[in-house]
Every structure is written in C-alpha cells, then in structure tokens.
C-alpha cells in the first residue's frame, strides 16, 4: 500500500466539497512530498481551510480520497498529524500542564510518557513556572505558545498549520518560525496555509495556489516560478527621457511598463528575450545605470494567477 502512494506524506485525489449551492472545493489533487514544507496559498474563501479540514477528517469529503503516509484516512494516520487550527482555543479553566497532557492523550500518548516532554517544552518556551496555572491567567501570547506545544507534543510526522501567523505578535511569529525551522531540519512534513505570500516565499519549498476551490499552480517553488514564464526587467536610466520610454513601450516584447521615478519596471511577454531591450537602449545611446533581469516574485505569480482565474470566471459568466 505504502509503495503505491510513493513518497507523498499526504495525497488527495479528486477531493471536493459542496455546501448547498456553494462549491467550496472543486475536485482537487494534491501530493505533498515527505519532508517538504508545503504552502497552501489562496485568497480568503479559496477553500484552504475546507481542504485542511477534509485532510483531518473534521468534515467529510463529497468525492475523492485522502491518503496519509500512504494509508487511507484512519485514527492511526490522524495520530501522526499535529494540527494548529486558525481558530485557536484552549480550555480556559484548565491548568497548563493538564491541558497539554490531555492533548497528548487525545493523540494516544499516555500521560506518563507525555509528562517529561511537557516539562521540556514548557522550559524551552519559558513557561515552566506557569505549568500549574489556569490558562485564563495566561496572556494571549503565552496561550499561543501553549497551543504550539500542544500541536507538536506527540512528535508528529506531519504538521498542519492553518494561517499560523495570523493574530501572532512579532515575538511569537519568531517563535513559530523557529519551530517550523526545527521541524524542517528534523525532516518533518509541514503543510501550512496562508494568504500572506511573503511568509510562504520565505518558508516554503513547495507551493500550491488555489482560488475559488480550484488549483491554479502547484509544485516546487522554483518550478512554479519558472513555469509562470514571464520575466521582469528593472532598468534605471541615467537621465529621464520621455522619448526612450515611449520607444520601449512600443517594443513587441514588452507587455507592460511601469514608471517609478527614474526606475522602470518592465514585464516581458511570455518567453521573450530581454536582449531586445538592451539593444534598443544601446542604439538610442541612452545612459543606463542599471539593467537587471528578475524572476517573478511569488506574489506576482499569485496575483497574476488568481487574477487570471477570476477573469476566466468572468468570461464564463458572460459567455
């Protein structure tokens, strides 16, 4: 069985979910490789949380199958996942240590095994002296740390984080980034959803962009960028020249030109050579301070892909 599903830690095949008239997730295939840090990106309402909840069996799938570590969804599979939901809550009247022990027991770790781990983690997050206090006596930031510990206490092979950075103060954002990096170097598979693309670009090696329940891009980060195709050229002119700018704009290779003071940002049409621009500048005898060919940022890929998907939808509506 494990062989069939190869190296994927989580594998979704044709998974979909509909709420009444609203198609939350269209049939979706996802393959999240072992040991990857996988970003599930998409605007609000794209179906990220619904997808995660289907992976965790919190809601049932309408169609399709979910495999975790090569096996169909089961209690055993769920026990090997750590989850930090977007809506993070605690039993406010419980004591910190008791709550963590409860979380561990829910994952099948006996209290006696969990006890030393809890002590270690509380120590690491400087919460040791709070272990016998009730959660409601803790600050929001401290509660968040307790929630992180709860998600990883059972040493899961897969960690799923839904919008992990939302609502965190900068200090806890750093704490969380440290945890993610630790998990990464320990070879754990991390799936996290976010609509903050910047975070994803910094942390992920794989991304999947979904919009309106549909997948619009998927794969290793570098490949997604490469496949996106368009290249960008940044030019800083020695001296501003309206004539030159107009000539550049008229070039067939140029799709879009934005002026930002003396700096020009040019988006080339797909698979066009930036050399034509350089030749034109030389021909015109314009002084060039800087000429730089860049790959698109994930944010640009995201905005263009999600935008294109919106456009398709418009066209479908008006057809």
């Amino acid at each position, binding site marked *: 069985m494990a062989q069939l599903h190869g190296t994927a830690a989580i594998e979704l095949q044709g998974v979909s979910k*509909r*709420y*009444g008239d609203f198609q939350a997730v269209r049939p979706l295939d996802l393959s999240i490789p072992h040991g990857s840090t996988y970003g599930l990106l998409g605007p609000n309402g794209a179906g990220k949380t619904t997808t995660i*909840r289907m992976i*965790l*069996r*919190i*809601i*049932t799938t309408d169609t399709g199958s979910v495999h975790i570590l090569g096996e169909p969804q089961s*209690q055993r599979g*769920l*026990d090997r*996942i750590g*989850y930090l*939901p977007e*809506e*993070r*809550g*605690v*039993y*406010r*009247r*419980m004591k910190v240590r*008791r709550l963590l022990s*409860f*979380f561990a*027991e*829910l*994952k*099948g770790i006996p209290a006696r095994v969990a006890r030393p781990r809890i002590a270690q983690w509380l120590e690491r997050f400087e919460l040791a002296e709070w272990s016998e206090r009730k959660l409601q006596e803790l600050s929001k930031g401290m509660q968040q740390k307790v929630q992180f510990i*709860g998600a990883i206490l059972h040493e899961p092979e897969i960690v799923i984080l839904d919008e992990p950075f939302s609502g965190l103060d900068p200090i806890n954002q750093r704490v969380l980034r440290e945890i993610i990096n630790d998990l990464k170097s320990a070879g754990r598979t991390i799936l996290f959803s976010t609509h903050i693309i910047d975070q994803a670009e910094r942390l992920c090696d794989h991304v999947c962009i979904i919009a309106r329940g549909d997948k619009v891009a998927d794969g290793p980060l570098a490949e997604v960028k490469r496949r996106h195709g368009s290249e960008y050229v940044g030019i800083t002119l020695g001296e501003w020249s309206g004539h030159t700018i107009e000539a550049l704009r008229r070039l067939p290779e140029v799709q879009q030109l934005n002026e930002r003071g003396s700096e020009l940002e040019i988006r080339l049409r797909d698979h066009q050579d930036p050399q034509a621009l350089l030749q034109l500048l030389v021909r015109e005898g314009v002084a060039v301070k800087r000429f730089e060919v860049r790959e698109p940022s994930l944010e640009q890929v995201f905005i263009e892909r999600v935008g294109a998907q919106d456009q398709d939808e418009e066209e479908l509506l008006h057809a």
Partner: protein
Amino acid sequence: MPRIVPVFKREFTETVGTRGFMIGTVLGPLLMVGIFAAQFLIIAKSGGGEHDIVILDASAGNLGAVVERNLEAPQPRMGFIAAPTFTARVEGVDAAAHEQAAERVRAQVVAEELDGFLYIPPDISSGETARYEGDNATNSGAMSQVRQAVQRAVQSERLGSEGIDEAKLTAALAPVPLDVAQTAGGNPTAARLLAFGMAFAMYMLVIMYGQSIMQSVLEEKRDRIVELVVSSIRARDLLIGKITALGAAGLLQMLIWVTAAAILMSQGGLLAGRFGADAEPVQMLSQAELFPSLPASTGVLFLLFFLGGFLLFATLFAVIGAIVTNTQEAQQYVFPVLVPFLLGLFIAMPAAENPDSSIAVAGSIIPFTAAMVMPVRVLMSNVSWLEILLSLVLLFASAAAVVWLAAKIYRIAIFATGKKPTLRELAGWLRTA
C-alpha cells in the same frame, strides 16, 4: 473507543474537582437538613395554639356544658403538630337577648381578653345553626375541633332522645379494616412513590447535568477548542465521553446525597431531639418501610431504565448546545426538551393504578417516556421480558441515534458562527455533514 477515555477523564476531573461541585455536594444536604429542621421547629413550636373562649348557651338541655367538656378533653396530636387546647366558660343566655350578650363578649375579643365565643341556639338539635366568632376563626385546626365538639354534643343528645345507647352504636359503627393487594406486585402507593422518586431523581440529574453538558458543548464551541479536539478524535467520541463523564459526576453527587439522607433518616430521632422537638414521630418515619423490598433483578432493571433515560435526555441537551451560539438562546430550547419528560411523568402516575391500559403500554415502549413508565408497570403488573427488552433496546438505540445526530450537528456547527441556524439550515447541515 479508547479515545473516549481521555475525554471522560478530563470532563470528570474538571467537574468533580471544581469548588462548585464540592460546595454543591456539601451544601445540598445541609440545605435539606436545614429546611427539614426549620420546618420541624416551626411546626413543633407553634402547634395548634391555646384558645380562650366563651360559650353563650341558649339551649334547653345544658348542651353548653357538654361542648365545654368535649373541647377541653385532651386531643390526639395530628402528625407532628400539637393539637390546639381550649379553655371554655359557659354562660347561659336568653335566646331573645343573645345579640346583646354577643355584643358584650365581642368587645372582650376586640380588647383581646378573649379569643372568641360560640353561640348555641335553642333549637340546635332540630337543625338551627350554631355560630362561632373570634379572632382565631382562620385557624382551621381549632375550628374543626370546635365543630366536632358541637357536633358530638348534639349527636349524643339526639341519640339520647331517641333512646339509643351511644356506646353500643359506636361499637356497631366501628370501621372494618380491608387489606388490598394487587396480585402481581406491590401496592399502588409504593409504586407511585417509586415512580415519582425515580422521575424526580432523573429530573434533578437531567436538569443539573443536562444543563452542564449543554454549557460544556457551548463553551467548547465558543472557546474554539472543539476543532482541535475533533481533528484528533471523532466528534461522536467527544460527545459520548462528555455525557458519560458528567452523568457519572451527577450520579456520584446523588450517591453522596442519598447516603447522607439515609444516615439522616436513621439518626433522625436523635437529630430532632437535639433541635428540641419530639423525637417519636421522626423515629416512626425512619422506621416505616417507604419502599417495598425489591428483588435484585428488578433493581438492575430500574437502574438500566434510569441510565437510559438520563442518556437520552442528556444527549438532547448536547444537541441544543451544538445548535445554539449562546446561553440565552439555549434557554428557549430547554422547555421543549422537557415536555416529553413531563409527559412520561403524567403517564407514569395513572399507570400505577392501571398498568395495562393501552396508554401505559404505549408509554412504556416509546423511548421518550419509557424510562418513567416501564418501571411502574414492572412493579404493578406481569410485564413480559420481551416487552421489557424491546423497551430497553429502543431506549438505548434512540439515545445512540441522538448522539449520532448531535455529533453531526456538532461538527457542522463548529463552522457556523454568529447567528442561530434556521430549521432549514439545520436540515442542510445534516445533509452535508
């Protein structure tokens, strides 16, 4: 299944470990003892009171003196309450002038020198009305004693005038004792008492712990913890763990109370003595056999029905908790859930009289009333094991069905925040879950 254990452990320790539970458990019986003792003191101290009256006698045959004798004779006490005592003085009056005499003693009543006066008219034996007036006319115990005193005096005179020996008549009219017993089982009073006792215990448990279950489900939703829990275990297991844990906490509390009550009952005479009351009636009460002794199998059966009934209703409270978004909203749903419960009680009471009526039979099979009705029928009639089994199976099956329903609603309701769902939305949830 084993994943129910951590939920049970958490809910049970978090409930039993709270100060509220301990205070409730200790204060409950203390309050009971307090009310018991206070009532006792009040009744024992106040009793029927002392009454000083004048008898205005216009009768021909010296009836006033007989009434006086009857009134002043010591009366048997009525239960815990001491009988009223009378001091009477007879004053012969002329029938024509009785109004003036009444006027005079009325002034004494107003001046609080007297409690009241009784006027005996001349033709009282042939049906003329006697009259009592006083500031104690609202004391029902005292008034019934006055009425009896007059009646016995008049009756005795009537018998005498007809030449009948009063003692012989009394002997002839002595009541005949009749022992009544239902062929299959105990007496209806005991069955009613048992039905009422069970229904009351279940009511207490459901009201107190059903509400806690509802509250706990609601809090888990409100505090955003439920998503984390159901990402690890099934919603159904979470609910079962919660309901059994809170039910166990409730049973524990009840056990403590029943034990306390039993000790109180057996030591009641001693306690009453400490409070300065007459110990005898309390001792009588504690020695009386309130419940007929039951065979162990019937006891087990009752326990099963009790647990099944609690499970069913407690789960309904869990459903409420899953549907609503705050406590105020939840309150509107509590009554509809209690209606079938009360219905069960209404069917169980007459079922003690008529255990095989069609409504009693139906009530003992339908799960929502079975827990109250079936035990009464078992006690009062020869119910076949097949019927009992059917009733039990239906009861537990519907409890399981409600758990399943609640778990479904629970999972969906996690994502519906803010407003309360309409019935249509609820139906939609059930389809998509």
